[in-house]
């Protein structure tokens, strides 16, 4: 029987009502009395020396309040990078200065050069047209392998080259890996591209700066996944504002997918300018600006090699990856191709020896950082593509080859520094084979062929690492932040609760699922629990939402705080019931004395906490509010197996997704409806990457895909109904809820299944193609079929 509330129930989302009636409160819906508007003049040249920025004519335009240029920020800190990578020689990565407004040079199309603040947005835009900018154009570097050549133009003149770092992982294993390749019975080699993407949350970024002269407090309203992180990064590293004088509010946020983790120049600008002109300053990104200023995702070029023995056991894996950083280091960019990618290269397989090399490269393109999955989709794509290619080279069934090499015993220490606590890859593959109706595939293929179409089937497995932690480990790995989460549970006198969580919901439904957990723990109705997030003045501290961490880390902090609440409430109840504390039981929202019919209701205890007339004042304080910080002891490791069935029109090269099946293991599930929805969305983004999406630059660094006219967003008719299952559950062993996280799985697990299916369809049409790069567009498919 499905539950109608608490953990495991598909509770309807409470946040939906405001969104469905137009009552959401997104950042652009906020207007502050007296606000001015800023428009950023952005570089339309990828690389050049700024010789002159003449604002005199523009400053005289109607409505202009002030125009800012890079000179105004010369004494201000640059945009900080939150992760330092140590290269394979033990040296720190090269870390360039990242100005708020371009200074000296422009390094990518879209880099802000000047900011016009005016009475209206139209006036700001009109005035920006009158700024005279002179740029002495320099040759741009776009291709990563060209960028690391000795004579390549340098993106940053003060760095030794365009190489940010050359990372080897695990460097001590390299010789053993090479030796295993020399002894291998079979080696499969694959070179591939993981295409550059733009996250494209439907809500463009917005920032509003406000400054209160009476108390010296700054407020920034921003479209962020982690307002406390922005408070720390912007306050401490850019503007020098202490936390107690800086409030950051991220209200309803219309999707993030990683790109709203980072601290952006526009946030710092609006906060700075609000004080400078003594008026609130608002910026709303257009979609075109978003394409050239939101951090991009992916963009890896990889050579991967898989070694096997004569019995088809994987013996070693070796990869060589170029990872694009863009022109500057975005907030967490260096961690994505390294610790979020190399550590996942074991996948679901017991490959004993692995070596990963990553060269991170500066180019004259928009900075690249985490996008849904962040490093893990890149790892999964190469691994699952090379395994599939290997199966075809060996003439063995791709599923059988995977099964033969599955990790089957847990905990399992991989050769890439992580230990999987739980998983059951056989179970998810069994479930996938059942749901995907493999037995019926031949009949479906014949039916397609009767219509002149080719049909292909592809599978892949994936492993994900969520809730990156613990803080003392990530500190050693170069993180310049902790990765805990905090929660404060405030119980009111009349029994209602407010949970203030550092996690941030921008579509994930935390207001519903987090309330389910607390309601279940106490045994009260979900409607008695409110979740508050997204405001540094309400929530004491937080690290935010990304990396599928919210329920595993933020949820665990909330559980710990609620446990403290229950412990104190039991003390109060034992006083009221005149019984020993150890005899008090909490069930269905009432405290009772074990073995008796004596009980007090939850509301009696909460009232006593705030009206402590009959209260153990000598032992405990009045009030009922507790805070917990939770720092996980390990990552969580969701896993699964996905299958895709495509139909390919050999006349046109058009590929359509006919079936998509996902069998996931997320450990315990709080709200199955929400989890399924998270997988759906991830699948759409993964299928989008595989079939449609591509962020393209020309050789001069011009961005060719800067609008929805040019960047192919997946639309309703591009996607199928999905068959999603999460009945395989191996609970996480090291967090109190046994949860693993589900936000990124769909995006991580789907691209290789799509490409594997397309290649299978081609083979069925007599064209044995070793690889095809994403997006698998009609022109690429047609060329491959007719090449």
């Amino acid at each position: 029987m499905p539950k109608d509330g608490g953990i495991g129930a598909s509770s309807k989302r409470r946040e939906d009502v405001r969104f469905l009636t137009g009552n959401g409160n997104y950042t652009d819906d906020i207007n502050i009395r007296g606000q001015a508007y800023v428009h950023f003049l952005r570089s339309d040249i990828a690389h050049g020396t700024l010789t002159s920025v003449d604002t005199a004519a523009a400053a005289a335009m109607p409505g202009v309040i002030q125009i800012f240029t890079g000179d105004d920020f010369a004494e201000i800190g640059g945009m900080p990078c939150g992760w330092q990578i140590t290269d394979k020689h033990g040296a720190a990565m090269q870390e360039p200065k990242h100005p708020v407004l371009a200074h000296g040079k422009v390094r990518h199309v879209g880099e802000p050069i000047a900011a016009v603040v005016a009475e209206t947005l139209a006036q700001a835009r009109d005035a920006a047209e009158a700024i005279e900018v002179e740029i002495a154009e320099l040759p741009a570097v776009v291709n990563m392998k060209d960028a690391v050549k000795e004579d390549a133009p340098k993106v940053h003149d003060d760095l030794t080259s365009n190489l940010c770092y050359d990372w080897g992982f695990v460097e001590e294993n390299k010789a053993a890996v090479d030796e295993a390749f020399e002894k291998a019975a079979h080696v499969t080699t694959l070179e591939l591209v993981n295409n550059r993407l733009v996250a494209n949350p439907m809500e463009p970024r917005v920032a509003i700066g406000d400054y209160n002269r009476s108390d010296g407090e700054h407020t920034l309203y921003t479209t962020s996944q982690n307002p406390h992180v922005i408070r720390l990064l912007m306050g401490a590293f850019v503007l020098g504002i202490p936390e107690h004088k800086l409030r950051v509010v991220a209200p309803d946020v219309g999707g993030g997918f990683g790109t709203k983790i980072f601290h952006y120049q526009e946030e710092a600008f609006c906060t700075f300018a609000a004080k400078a002109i003594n008026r609130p300053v608002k910026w709303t990104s257009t979609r075109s600006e978003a394409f050239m200023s939101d951090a991009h995702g992916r963009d890896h070029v990889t050579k991967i090699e898989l070694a096997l023995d004569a019995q088809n056991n994987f013996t070693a894996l070796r990869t060589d990856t170029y990872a694009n950083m863009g022109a500057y280091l975005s907030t967490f960019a260096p961690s994505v191709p390294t610790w979020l990618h190399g550590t996942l290269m074991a996948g679901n397989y017991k490959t004993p020896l692995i070596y990963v090399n990553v060269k991170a490269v500066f180019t004259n393109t928009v900075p690249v950082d985490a996008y849904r999955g962040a490093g893990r989709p890149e790892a999964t794509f190469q691994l699952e593509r090379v395994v599939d290619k290997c199966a075809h080279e060996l003439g063995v069934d791709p599923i059988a080859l995977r099964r033969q090499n599955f990790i089957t015993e847990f905990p399992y220490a991989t050769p890439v520094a992580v230990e999987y606590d739980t998983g059951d890859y056989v179970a998810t593959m069994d479930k996938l084979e059942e749901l995907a109706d493999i037995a019926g595939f031949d009949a479906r293929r014949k039916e397609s062929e009767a219509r002149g179409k080719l049909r292909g089937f592809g599978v892949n497995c994936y492993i994900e690492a969520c809730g990156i932690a613990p803080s003392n480990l990530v500190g050693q790995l170069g993180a310049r932040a902790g990765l805990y989460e905090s929660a404060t549970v405030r119980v009111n006198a009349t029994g209602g609760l407010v949970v203030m969580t550092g996690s941030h919901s921008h579509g994930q439904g935390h207001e519903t699922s987090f309330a389910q957990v607390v309601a279940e723990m106490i045994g009260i109705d979900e409607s008695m629990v409110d979740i508050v997030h997204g405001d540094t003045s309400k929530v004491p501290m937080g690290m935010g939402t990304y990396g599928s961490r919210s329920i595993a880390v933020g949820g665990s902090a909330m559980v710990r705080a609620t446990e403290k609440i229950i412990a104190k409430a039991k003390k109060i109840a034992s006083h009221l019931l005149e019984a020993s504390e150890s005899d008090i039981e909490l069930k269905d929202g009432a405290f009772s004395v074990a073995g008796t019919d004596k009980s007090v209701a939850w509301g009696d205890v909460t009232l006593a906490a705030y009206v402590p007339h009959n209260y153990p004042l000598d032992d405990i304080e009045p009030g009922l509010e507790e805070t917990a910080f939770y720092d996980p002891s390990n990552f969580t490791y969701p896993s699964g197996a996905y299958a895709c069935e495509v139909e390919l029109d050999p006349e046109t090269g058009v590929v359509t997704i006919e079936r998509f099946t996902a069998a996931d293991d997320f450990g315990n599930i709080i709200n199955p409806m929400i989890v399924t929805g998270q997988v759906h969305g991830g699948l759409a983004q993964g299928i989008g990457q595989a079939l449609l999406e591509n962020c393209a630059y020309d050789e001069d660094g011009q961005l060719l895909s800067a609008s929805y006219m040019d960047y192919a967003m997946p639309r309703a008719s591009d996607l199928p109904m999905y068959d999603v299952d999460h009945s395989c559950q191996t609970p996480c062993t090291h967090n109190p809820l046994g949860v693993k996280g589900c936000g990124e799985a769909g995006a991580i697990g789907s691209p290789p299944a799509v490409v594997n299916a397309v290649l299978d369809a081609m083979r069925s049409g007599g064209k044995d193609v070793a690889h095809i790069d994403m997006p698998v567009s009609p022109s690429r498919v047609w060329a491959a079929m007719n090449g």
Partner: protein
Amino acid sequence: MTQVNMTVNGKSASGDVEGRTLLAQFLRDDQGLTGTHIGCDTSQCGACVVHVNGEAVKACTMLAIEADGATVGTIEGQANDDGSLNVIQQAFQDHHGLQCGFCTPGMVMSAAALLKDNPKPSEAEIRHYLDGNICRCTGYHNIVKAIMAASGQDVSAIAAE
């Protein structure tokens, strides 16, 4: 500046606008109806879909002065008279047809226009009709399911949750 007068969600609405002011801007900035969202600048995303004289229109493709004298419906006017969610809104909640909520007003307005013309659309017809509405969160599965359910069709055979 030109004065425009229109009926928005059954109430008269007027304001002085520039010639270049879009209907979407007039609704958001002049009328405070911020449920109409702006997600792009090329009339592709559909977050701003409203009803003008009963037809679905992207409010970013129409100047405010073009809507002078028109009857306009926005997401704020969609709920039942008693404030409860209408059939389409309720189906979106019941079937988890929204996540971040940003595309949702446009989706609901488009769905209403579709069902007015085609009371029992097929899955393929819904997907085709929604070509001008982009959602980045849901993968469309539950949006399509919600619209089918709102039209009174049995969706129990469509994959669970």
